[in-house]
């Protein structure tokens, strides 16, 4: 009976027990409200100032500081007025003297006749020592005409407003704040008699400067790529997307690594519930260390078993910017040159950054080629197998005879042949990546030419199959998204097996199953194959083929952005001779 029950349990439909998944709805008010309330409390005072564009950047920093204070407010202020007590805590927390690269610089601030002890901590190698010397140590130690009143708070203000000329000075009430800053390339300053410490941003990480992106190459378009440092990445985005409402929220991931991350979005475009969901997912991650957005992606994606990526990882700031303007959310992580953008759809992984910069006929050509490349990469070996094993009548007789002659001396069935070549192709590919730089291209040539040629001459594979596998390989490289390329290469093996089992029937079954799988998937609440299924309203002109830039009037409907329209119906106003081009642009934005 038990077995019967079990089988019944297996075969019949059950209402899924899981809790309701996140779905990105048009109306974001219910989801977003709680979040906006919190924000209101946090940032009430600064809201008025927000309008001034020039101050924006500074304000952003201050806001972030405020936020950090807000979010960490559960921690009690634990900095003691006793300098020695603070020093003991710091030494304990940093495992001094085990820790060799932490510098604790003790010094005295001399004021007329009194001497105030102080110490500075920072990590050697993370900071710019010149800044510390010139902007922190020098003023403190040399400015001797300090007029100190007995009130501790006033000293604090006085130091902050008069003595330290450093541009990014924060006050910290807890040791943890100081430690976070120190790990992120700041320095902490403890002064005797104050229960507040100063942290100054003096970071100068060893690392790359901004270079050309290595993997997402374009011919026409910006040539900057992200680097491994958080602030230079957010800076690259902000430099490009000069929008007053661009928000950079800070968030820390990793219980031990405490890796700083930023969530970026355009406040009045991105759907609030989407931002809240991203924030919720990121905050909920419980992990000791996290090193790269590649790991982060796996923590936050909707369906780990889906073959295709559900998060866009890109190293191009311009790509991130254009996606932000569509209402998406970007996640920047310290230490990773790839920025994640969510949500994405199946179309997005077939786009390249260049599409937007080229005139529309050119980018449409590229898109059609890419779709062909995808189909080839996915199906070509399978179709070859199906035809040579099951559907001989489908191909021209001459081709059939050519295949026949080529296969005449090959000892293996064609399935084995295909697997042999596919596996050796993957081998060449993997070896080509792992091999030390200078030898790389040579190996490619050896692998591709010599191996293929020799295999044909040794009658292990047929030459026509080499063509099939080579074209398939080219197809998989033409897919612009690295992860998607992987996905289709894995699925290709599935299709090969299916077609070996039952020809076109197998391929059809595979396509149907894959279709079901994709249609079922969601990326951050957005159906993965939208706008194809579910079909969303018209007007979105970037689905498969692209319309000219001046016709791309709406943001993708599935993003449910706060503002649906990017540009008015007539964005090239000059075509109408009567319109005065100096007229205000503001009305355009209210679409």
């Amino acid at each position, binding site marked *: 009976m038990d077995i019967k029950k079990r089988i019944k349990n*297996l075969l019949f439909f059950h209402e899924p027990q899981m809790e309701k998944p996140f779905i990105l709805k048009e109306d974001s008010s219910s989801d977003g409200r709680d979040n906006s309330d919190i924000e209101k409390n946090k940032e009430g005072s600064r809201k008025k100032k927000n309008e001034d564009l020039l101050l924006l950047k500074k304000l952003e920093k201050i806001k972030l500081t405020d936020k950090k204070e807000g979010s960490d407010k559960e921690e009690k202020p634990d900095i003691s007025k006793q300098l020695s007590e603070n020093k003991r805590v710091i030494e304990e927390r940093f495992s001094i003297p085990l820790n060799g690269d932490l510098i604790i610089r003790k010094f005295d601030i001399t004021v007329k006749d009194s001497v105030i002890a102080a110490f500075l901590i920072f990590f050697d190698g993370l900071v710019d020592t010149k800044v510390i010397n010139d902007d922190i140590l020098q003023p403190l130690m040399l400015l001797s005409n300090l007029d100190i009143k007995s009130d501790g708070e006033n000293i604090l203000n006085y130091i902050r407003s008069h003595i330290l000329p450093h541009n990014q000075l924060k006050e910290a009430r807890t040791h943890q704040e100081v430690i976070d800053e120190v790990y992120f390339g700041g320095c902490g300053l403890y002064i005797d008699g104050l229960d507040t410490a100063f942290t100054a941003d003096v970071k100068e990480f060893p690392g790359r400067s901004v270079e050309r992106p290595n993997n997402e190459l374009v011919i026409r378009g910006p040539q900057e790529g992200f680097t491994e440092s958080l602030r230079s990445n957010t800076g690259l985005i902000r430099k490009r997307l000069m929008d007053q409402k661009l928000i950079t929220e800070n968030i820390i991931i990793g219980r031990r690594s405490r890796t700083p991350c930023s969530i970026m979005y355009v406040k009045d475009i991105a759907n609030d519930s989407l931002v809240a969901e991203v924030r919720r997912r990121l905050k909920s991650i419980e992990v000791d260390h996290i090193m790269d957005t590649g790991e982060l992606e796996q923590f936050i994606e909707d369906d780990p078993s889906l073959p295709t990526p559900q998060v866009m990882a890109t190293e191009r700031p311009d790509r991130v910017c254009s996606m932000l303007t569509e209402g998406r959310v970007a996640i920047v992580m310290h230490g990773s040159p790839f920025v994640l953008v969510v949500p994405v759809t199946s179309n997005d992984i077939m786009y390249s950054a260049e599409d937007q910069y080229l005139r529309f006929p050119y980018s449409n050509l590229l898109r059609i080629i890419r779709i062909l490349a995808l189909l080839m990469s996915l199906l070509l070996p399978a179709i070859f197998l199906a035809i040579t094993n099951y559907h001989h009548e489908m191909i021209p007789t001459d081709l059939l005879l050519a295949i026949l002659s080529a296969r005449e001396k090959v000892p293996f069935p064609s399935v084995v042949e295909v697997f042999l070549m596919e596996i050796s192709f993957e081998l060449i590919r993997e070896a080509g990546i792992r091999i030390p730089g200078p030898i790389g291209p040579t190996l490619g040539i050896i692998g591709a030419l010599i191996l293929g040629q020799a295999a044909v001459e040794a009658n292990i594979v047929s030459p026509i199959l080499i063509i099939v596998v080579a074209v398939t390989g080219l197809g998989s490289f033409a897919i612009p998204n690295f992860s998607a390329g992987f996905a289709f290469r894995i699925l290709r093996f599935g299709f090969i097996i299916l077609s070996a089992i039952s020809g076109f029937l197998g391929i059809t079954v595979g396509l149907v199953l894959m279709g079901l799988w994709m249609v079922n998937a969601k990326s951050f609440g957005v159906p993965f194959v939208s706008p194809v299924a579910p079909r969303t309203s018209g007007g979105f002109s970037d689905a498969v083929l692209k319309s000219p830039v001046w016709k791309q009037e709406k943001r993708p409907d599935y993003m449910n952005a706060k503002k649906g329209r990017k540009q008015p119906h007539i964005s090239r106003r000059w075509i109408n001779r009567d319109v005065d081009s100096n007229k205000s642009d503001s009305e355009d934005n209210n679409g």
Partner: protein
Amino acid sequence: MARGKLLVIFLMLAIICPVMTSCFDAKEVDDMGFVIALGLDKGKTNALRMTLQIAKPMAGDNGGGGGKDDGLPYAQFSVEAPSIYSGLNMINTSASKQISLTHIKVVVFSSELAREGLGPYLHAMVRGREFRPNMPIVVARNTAEEYLESVDPKLVVNATKYYELVYQSYKYTGLIPKVEFHDFYLSSESLCKNPVAILGNTAKFQSVDEFDLKDSTYLEHGRSSPFEGDFYAGDIPALGGSRSENIGLAVFDGDRMVGELDGTNTTFHLLCTGDFVHSYWNVPDPLSEGHYVLLDIKQSRKPRHHVEIVEGKPVIHLTFNLEGDLLSVQSTIDYEAGDNSMILESAVESYIIDQLLQYLDKTVNEFQSDICGFGTHARGLFTTWAEWEAYQWKSKYKDATFTVDVNFKVRRPGLILRSKSSVTSESGSDTQ
């Protein structure tokens, strides 16, 4: 979760099931022998004598002409068997590869077999899913075996290409009919139409010395010397290339062959069915006896058929719209000029009408077979199918009378804008 594990086990079983049964009908290409031509003759010891040409693999290397032993890109097998499929079985006793008919390019029947009726073979071929519906049907005037043996493709590397191309030549010669197996079969069972097949034979001349015209039909057409179409297959005085010749058509009544038509009549057959594309014609010069005007004639519109039944007999009215380019004017008369061109056009029209009526007359009186499918236009005159069946078109066709209308226009004079006789020192005129 136990449920998850069970699901995995279940899925694995589900995947393994098809794998167990898998590939049972998978066949590697190189395990198959692909028949490219099938010939059927009357057998000596059995009902059928089958001739199969099986493509040889191109031996891997240069692909230049296939097999090395006899230079032919195919191997020929003959077997005597009671039916097509049993013949395949018998051939498989000696051929190493499984015979596949999926790429068959042509089926050749001997006229002896065709005159007895092709019904049983047609049925077998329609039912078998390996036969392509678009393969041409050839009737060989002698034996199919001999016809297939004489195919020695000189101009193309492989035999399949030869077969694919040679039966398409109706598009530019107009000397063979357009025949596809499926149409052939349907016509043979139809109430309103009779099928035709391409007439083929082995060329009878081995050297120039043997050339003669005794089998040519030029006298029948009232000419002093034969035109290109005035031959049956095998009779053309030509050498070189393949020794198989295809010209003319085999007339069927139902599934039974009743006669042959030469190349000239085949051209008019194509005109009547609307399958004519273009070809070069010699037309007697209306103004200069003994000379010809060469025209490249095209069908500018499909012909219009109008069928009436007057006193129980079919009266068929045909309208043709043709146009032509001047290729050569042997008499150097200025046919490009207005009046002359009118003369030429009306002469061509009356020539075509004359020839067409001769052809139609043959179909009515000699073969009594509606191979042009006029019956399809007659069907509409009957209100019910039963009436149409009762009328028995095929038996009434012999009483048909025809009126023919031809509109012919000369469109282009070629690259010569004005014909002029050449000037020699004696100031005499030269032809062409």
